[in-house]
């Protein structure tokens, strides 16, 4: 009996010991990794059949959301690492979105609300990276690392020019290998919008600067059908009217191709 009690005590002690980590032992340093975009992939004849995949980060956010500035900080940190390989888009909508008043700018849109509904966003901040399901912003760096290492057979480019009150947009797509079936989506974003934002301490910052804010879905909420086979090279043209409330110097266009498996490729260009 005494032996059993001793044994149970020993097991208890062993488990307790494993459950404590001293302050000095809590951080494990890892070898520094510099981001390098995936190399092009060639076939046996030396033709490029896949290129580095850029990554679309849709940040479902809202001006009433107190923790959303934390997610924005994460986006800024990710952008420092991945540069233009990361294409972040702030989608204002849902319960924390603000549609604005006569005196206060609201950044939520019906399109943003539709996306929040579609993804069943019930709390914010939350986001999706290349449309592989929702992730907490604490998880974005891990998902980003995986996505940024991938290649894709779809090559994309975009140009956007302002003429009068319209943006003329041209998106070109090249299918380097295989076949693809999905949708082509084009958005207009605006940077540097000064508007209210709730802060983590519950206060409201009226001078908060909002970047990469989704302003409009140029070709509908879910885009146009897009199919391509190896060798297909296409040019797609769009026009977007610019309301007076948008700052024409800070507009950009994001175009991406996606289907049920996620975003295949994305490209971003500033409006000239």
């Amino acid at each position, binding site marked *: 009996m005494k032996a059993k009690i001793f044994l149970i005590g020993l097991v208890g002690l062993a488990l307790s010991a494993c*459950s404590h980590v001293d302050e000095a032992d809590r951080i494990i340093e*890892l070898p520094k990794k510099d981001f390098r975009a995936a190399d092009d992939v060639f076939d046996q004849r030396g033709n490029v059949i896949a290129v580095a995949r850029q990554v679309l980060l849709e940040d479902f956010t809202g001006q009433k959301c107190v923790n959303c500035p934390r997610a924005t900080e994460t986006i800024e940190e990710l952008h420092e690492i991945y540069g233009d390989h990361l294409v972040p888009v702030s989608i204002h909508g849902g319960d924390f979105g603000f549609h604005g008043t006569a005196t*206060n700018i609201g950044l939520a849109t019906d399109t943003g609300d539709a996306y929040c509904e579609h993804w069943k966003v019930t709390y914010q901040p939350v986001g999706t990276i290349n449309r592989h399901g929702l992730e907490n912003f604490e998880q974005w760096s891990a998902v980003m690392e995986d996505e940024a290492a991938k290649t894709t057979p779809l090559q994309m480019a975009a140009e956007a020019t302002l003429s009068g009150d319209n943006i003329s947009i041209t998106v070109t797509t090249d299918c380097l290998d295989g076949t693809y079936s999905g949708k082509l989506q084009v958005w207009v974003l605006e940077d540097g919008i000064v508007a209210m934002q709730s802060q983590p301490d519950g206060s409201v910052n009226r001078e908060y600067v909002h970047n990469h804010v989704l302003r409009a879905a140029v070709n509908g909420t879910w885009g146009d059908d897009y199919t391509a086979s190896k060798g297909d090279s296409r040019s797609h043209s769009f026009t977007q009217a610019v309301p007076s409330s948008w700052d024409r110097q800070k507009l950009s266009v994001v175009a991406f191709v996606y289907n049920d498996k996620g975003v295949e490729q994305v490209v971003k260009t500033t409006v000239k």
Partner: protein
Amino acid sequence: MKRQLTTLAALCCLLTAAAQEPAGAGSTPKSADEATVSGSIQSDMLVPQNDKAIGATKDGNFNTNTYIDVLMQSRYVDAGGRFEYKEHPLPGYANYPETGFKGTGLPNFWLKGKLGNNELTVGTFYEQFGSGFILRAYEERSLGIDNSLLGARLVVRPFRGVTVKALTGWQRHYWTWDGGQVSGADLEIGLEQWIRPLRDHDWRLSIGASWVNKRETGDSVFTNTLRSQMLNLPKYVNAWDVRVNLNKGPWGVLLEYAQKTQDPSADNYFVYKKGSAALLSGSYSKRGLSVLLQAKRSENMAFRSRRLQTGNALFINHLPAFTLDHTYALAALYPYATQLADGEWAYQAEVGYTFKRRTWLGGRYGMNVKVNYSYVRSIDDDGVEYPYGATGYKSKFFKWGDATYYQDLNVQLSRRFTRGFKLNLMYMNQRYNQLVVERHGGMIHSNIFVADGLFQLAPKTQLRCELQYLQTKQDLGDWVYGLLELSLAPHWMLTVSDMWNCGNTATEALPTYNNENTHHHYYQGFVTYSVGSHRIQAGYGRTRAGYNCSGGVCRYVPATKGFTLSYNYNF
């Protein structure tokens, strides 16, 4: 959709038919060795509609959460299982991070062997140690919670008044069991069985002690976006709980304390702080008078079997709520959710008194008065935002923090005036910290008035009328609610209600966001038919977006509109 409905209906019919005979046999067992079969069917269905005004967007053409439970009992062996059909779940249940909720299958199944006072369960099971501070595996369908354990549980009663439990398993995470392994043991001793003087003086004194261990490996947590540092996470988290429960006559006292070792998780922003919970509860209950006084302090006690999990899933423990779960619609508009990770000081006092019949206050039939007060406040905190891997804040045990999380003072009167009329009145004064509970907004201070009258129109006909009003200057402003419920015993019940946001949106807390027209009517109508152990309810109406809470745990429910059908059957 037609095929889904047909499949569902066929399944229900099949199980109903299959259950009929054993149920009949079970109700009158012929011998102790005979097996009995019992069970239940619960199916809640919605044919949704879009309603832009209230923000209701339909997800498919048909939604249902359907559960079928079957239990076989015999002298030595029990067995059971639960079939769930949630392929197209009701709105809000499968929203992020609960997306795993969706599915169909048999997630609960168990076999229990019984010998004397001892039992061994293999399969899925529920369990609670003490008040649940360190272990509570339970099901709460209205919240979509089922954190049952899949594994083995042994309960032995080796001596009179002594119960020992030991268990190990993995928690259900909707359709997977992907959390860490949870093991534990609990000992409860009824000392009055061993100490004669206690028995002689009618004292009941029980002591209990529990231990729970979580073994978790696998997930990596990086301290920065660069991912140049990661946390050395504890492989095991241990928690223990001790308690004393003393009762004599109408008096009762419960004292309980629990502690948890380092458990860095998404809930506590990965700090290595220990957790603790303490509870003191005293009660007195004698005919006509009841008194309850409770205090609870918790600190960093979110305990899950997977440290990266958020939302409602994979909680190993549960802290009892010290706030009243209100049933009146407007009283439940701003429900409080227990702050497990942040910690809280919570107090509750309740006095119930029945004024006797044929007295000045009691009238001809007597009158019940109940006063309940609950107050929840933050614990002492240094206000520093610690980085991942830090030990975290220090908190003095008895010192309060700066923020009031919740306060509710409510007075309820219940009096029958005549044989044909009974009236319930309630006044409630509430302070609700929306920023803490919902992570937006500010403090909402409201006054709520409820009148609930029951008219006996005929021997089998009753009419119940509710009128409620919520007054507040914050958030969405004032609300009014009315309900008429006609009962035609024994089978029929007709209900109509409307909740209307009649006030002006936020005039104080966040005037900057005051933009939206929220003056909507949330109307509902239901017809309920009951016969035997069958109950079916059909309805149509709107449901407001908000939080549905039970026991301090909440689930967000989006706005909905459409036709509803509910079916319940016990066999």
